[in-house]
């Protein structure tokens, strides 16, 4: 079990993702400054939307849509960062072999 510490850590990350509907909906630091200093209007929309604003499209319950988005993102980032690291370590092995 000790060797699988990262499974426990990943499980904990998923728990955080499940808590995501509790997040504050107030503007964040940059958005707030942009509103107060009058340049928020410069912000443009993205030319495409996938899971825009961390709300999974097609789910009516917004809390659930946020949780689904959070779980997808958390698993995706685990896979992406793991994959990049795995490729880099593998590359080194192939070069020195």
């Amino acid at each position, binding site marked *: 079990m000790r060797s699988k510490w990262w499974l426990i850590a990943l499980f904990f990350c998923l728990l955080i993702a499940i808590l995501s509907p*509790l997040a504050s909906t*107030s503007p964040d630091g940059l958005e707030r400054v942009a509103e107060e200093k009058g340049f928020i209007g410069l912000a*443009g929309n993205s030319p495409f939307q996938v899971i825009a604003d961390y709300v999974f499209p097609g789910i009516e319950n917004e809390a659930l849509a946020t949780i689904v988005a959070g779980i997808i993102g958390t698993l995706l980032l685990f896979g992406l960062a793991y994959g990049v690291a795995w490729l880099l370590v593998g590359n080194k092995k192939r070069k020195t072999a």
Partner: protein
Amino acid sequence: MHIPDGFLNIATVATTSAVSAAGVAAAIKITGKQLKEKQVPLMGVMGAFIFAAQMLNFPIAGGTSGHFMGAALAAILLGPWAGTLIMTCVLIAQCLIFQDGGLLALGANVLNMGLIGSFSGYGMYRLMTLLAGRGARSRLIAGFAGSWAAIVLASIACALELAISGASPLQVVLPAMAGVHALIGLVEGAITVVVLGVIIATRADLLEMARVKAGGNPK
């Protein structure tokens, strides 16, 4: 502090993209040379944790929220180059899939929250552990200071880019950004301390693993 498209002018977009591209290329090269097989799962966990924690905006003073950045934590655990790579993964996914941070602003966001966050957080942490020793308590204090400095410096870089782009005058946007992120940084520091504390208590060996160091060759 994900910059959306529209805030930055073309010159700033081009400059920040070029700097970030060069920085990420160096990060790939150096991390590739030094990363150990045992550290691969930690890279994945850090990516997952930073993404999840960034979703949890917490309220700070006056109807404003902040969220964890995580660059300093990643850099403390894995070194600044690997930290930059993890942040780049998170920022690319947030930009392409979650429409958080603009496409053209991706380079600036990687520069601020990736490169500047990782290196300033790591630098401050190393400086403080050199001065105060490597005991658990000084590591935690250094972790707090490093992650506070990282988010404040990232916000200052963001303010400079906004001012250079003409979005807002420097004397207006710089104190506003640094001020609000000095507050957010207190929570950033607290989260970093909790995570470092858990790791020191349960898996101190993760902290002892050779980090991907700035520039140098592995022994």
